[in-house]
């Protein structure tokens, strides 16, 4: 949706002033051409090719985001390397009749002309609409919503969560569906891009150079984000709700762990990680607190929804011990049980448990990258579990689930991704003993598109269901999870797409799963 500036009463008065100043400069010899390449006057290209986004809602604030990129796949996004004035507005209505906050900022070349505005002074738990303007060109309008006031009693909230959006493996039909539902908040749990070069895909242009080469340098990661974010369904999902994002491995490289990856020695790998983090921050609606300093980024953080829910957003990549037994699926052993190994790192674990101790929330949610539940992938008495998930870090998992149990943490729910399949589980104090207490509940969402069409239950899914009695639901189609949460219950709708190999697949609810207050574990509705 695009709203003409003339339809608002207050308009972009100050922004117009700034634009006029730029136009004057444009008359100076040698400056006109540069401005033409920077979406100045005379540049008819649309600078908002990557849409708008918002994220990390607080009771009084939300981050709004856009990037100026008239030619998103070319160096510097088709911009020249100078700052550009960008106006922004936040309103209480989608037609911008009641504008409550507005301002100008500079989109700077060193941040790929991205704009991250931390809009403060908003009212809690209400909808807002936002847009940007540069030299008379208006961005699409985004809808967002602030978090409830601290300690507010919240009757109901909606959220969606998603992961794993391999662009070349499928159309983002799930995102079109997600956008229509206008959730209060969306969690993205990792694999927003894939770093490796692909060979062929189901979408047109899958074999263009910007998809067939791996990303290592900063310019390459930036182009990869741009190529994904050009998708209109992804843009619609971003514009429909604030997103809270965390990353997994493919935002950097397959199965990296802290400073370790087989592709390069640590010093060299950390340069790649720094490049990947920088491009990630630039393209996500994140605060300055998350701006990476070289190869380090403070990504784990807490998002609170009054007394209803508290979300601990984890980073299980940056501080983890290297995968046990050389990665892959292996039998559990001394390495996976080694208390010195961790998937969170000691500082993040302490932060998590301290946060739980102080939490007044009815629902305590872990928003994390993969599966907490044990996944025995081998049929028969032999046990093989993935070394890259929490299974490879059993001591880490036991400390966290053990703490939740001992402290009688109210309603622990884990939401995860990474598996490219839907898996809903009871979280057991001891996964090897079906009679052990159920500590919490886990919803792992499937991929948006990674792994292509899939099927209801593949042989791997059959094995998982058979070998892991704590798993109550499995599905191997693409989609996302849409949830409704009240103080009394949590309902997860597993939304699946019949085909992602065609642009117009059909989305339906494959399963409706319930968790009741004070009764951990999955109930199938």
């Amino acid at each position, binding site marked *: 949706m695009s709203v003409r500036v003339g339809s608002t009463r207050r308009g972009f008065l100050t922004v117009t002033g700034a634009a006029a100043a730029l136009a004057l400069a444009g008359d100076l010899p040698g400056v006109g051409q540069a401005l033409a390449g920077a979406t100045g006057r005379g540049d008819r290209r649309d600078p908002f090719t990557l849409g708008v986004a918002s994220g990390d809602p607080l009771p009084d604030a939300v981050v709004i985001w856009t990037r100026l990129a008239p030619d998103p796949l070319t160096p510097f996004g088709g911009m020249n390397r100078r700052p550009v004035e960008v106006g922004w507005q936040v309103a209480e209505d989608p037609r911008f009749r009641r504008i409550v*906050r507005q*301002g100008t900022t500079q989109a700077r070349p060193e941040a790929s002309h991205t704009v991250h505005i931390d809009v*403060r002074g908003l009212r809690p738990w209400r909808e807002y609409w936002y847009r940007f303007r540069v030299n008379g060109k208006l961005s699409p309008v985004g809808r967002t919503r602030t978090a409830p006031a601290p300690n507010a009693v919240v009757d109901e909230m909606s959220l969606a969560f998603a992961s794993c959006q391999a662009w070349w493996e499928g159309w983002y039909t799930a995102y079109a569906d997600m956008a229509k539902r206008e959730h209060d908040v969306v969690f993205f749990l990792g694999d927003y891009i894939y770093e490796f070069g692909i060979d062929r895909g189901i979408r047109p242009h899958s074999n263009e150079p910007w998809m067939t080469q791996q990303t290592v340098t900063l310019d390459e990661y930036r182009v990869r984000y741009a190529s994904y974010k050009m998708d209109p369904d992804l843009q619609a999902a971003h514009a429909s709700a604030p997103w809270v994002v965390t990353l997994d491995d493919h935002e950097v490289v397959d199965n990296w762990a802290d400073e370790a990856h087989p592709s390069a020695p640590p010093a060299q790998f950390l340069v790649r990680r720094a490049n990947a983090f920088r491009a990630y921050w630039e393209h996500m609606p994140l605060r300055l607190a998350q701006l990476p300093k070289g190869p380090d980024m403070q990504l784990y953080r807490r998002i609170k929804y009054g007394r209803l829910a508290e979300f601990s957003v984890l980073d299980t990549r940056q501080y983890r011990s290297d995968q046990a037994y050389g990665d892959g699926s292996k039998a559990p052993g001394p390495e996976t049980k080694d208390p010195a190994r961790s998937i969170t790192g000691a500082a993040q674990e302490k932060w998590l448990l301290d946060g739980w101790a102080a939490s007044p929330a009815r629902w305590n949610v872990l928003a994390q990258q993969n599966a907490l539940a044990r996944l025995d992938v081998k049929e028969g008495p032999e046990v093989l579990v993935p070394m890259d998930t929490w299974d490879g870090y059993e001591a880490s998992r036991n400390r966290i689930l053990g703490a939740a149990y001992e402290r009688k943490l109210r309603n622990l729910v884990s939401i995860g991704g990474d598996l490219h399949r839907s898996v809903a589980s009871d979280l057991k104090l001891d996964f090897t003993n079906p009679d052990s207490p159920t500590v919490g509940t886990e919803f792992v969402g499937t991929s948006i598109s990674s792994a292509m069409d899939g099927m209801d239950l593949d042989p791997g899914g059959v094995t998982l269901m058979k070998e892991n009695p704590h798993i109550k639901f499995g599905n191997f189609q693409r989609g996302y999870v849409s949830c409704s949460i009240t103080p009394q219950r949590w309902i997860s709708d597993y939304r699946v797409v019949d085909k992602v190999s065609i642009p117009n697949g059909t989305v339906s609810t494959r399963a409706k799963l319930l968790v009741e207050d004070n009764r951990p574990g999955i109930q199938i509705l």
Partner: protein
Amino acid sequence: MTIRWQSAVALGTAVAAAIALPQATNGAPPRTDVQVSVQPTQLSVVGLPCFPGNLTLTMTNTGAEDRYADLTLDPRGPLQLSRELFSSWLPAVDPDQPVSAPVEVRVPRDTQPGNYSIELEVDRSKVTVPVTVNPLPAKGPGSNVALGEQATASSTHGNFAVCGGVDGDHDSAHWDTLTGWNDGTRAVFPDNYAVTLAAPTTINRVELYTLDTAQWPAATNGLRDWDVQVRSGTGDWQTVAQVRGNTLGHVVSTFDPVQTDAVRILCLAGNGNTYSRIVELEVYGS
């Protein structure tokens, strides 16, 4: 590096914090703490589509602060570059840590031989890389007419390059340096690998090198069954030779002379039933 935090203009009573990045003070002199080097320091290329010249660009932060840097590449004349930008974070560490990236340089077939250049620039300091475009190699009787010509494939594994099978290197020992072609669909056949010749040419011999080393013998890793095909005037592929049950690293197929503008290997099976692997495809006339 001097930095400051710039806050955005907040209007009226708005309480808005724009997220502004640390930035260089306006008017500061250009920073020159990034050392640029390029290997080789000069380049020779020919106008063959699958025979690019390769440069390695290196930036090294010699300053006291970690930083990001943009190296732009400006091709002068008809040069075509695989990248015109190399951006990276550059740590300030002791000893200095160089950060490198590759760039491929191509020229159209009809490029006038002569001297051209690529201008590299970081922070307004420049480096010029001279590029000599040499005349096309004469492809007379007895020469490999597939050398450096445009290769295409049904698929290519992400760790390999489609041009690897026509790069003039048929030594399996160099397999892991992108000297060959490996298809991208494991255990799925057929695959195909084709090369388009510069012009219709009369040919009567195709030599195929498949992977064959002590560690990866052809008998377990090489191509087993394939058809040698040529493109007819109507665009159809016509089989001129067949190889079945191969266990060798080098196979010569001869056939009656035929005029064609493209040659294709239709890969029907591999030893080990994994991938199709071609180290080099050579095509000869009589």
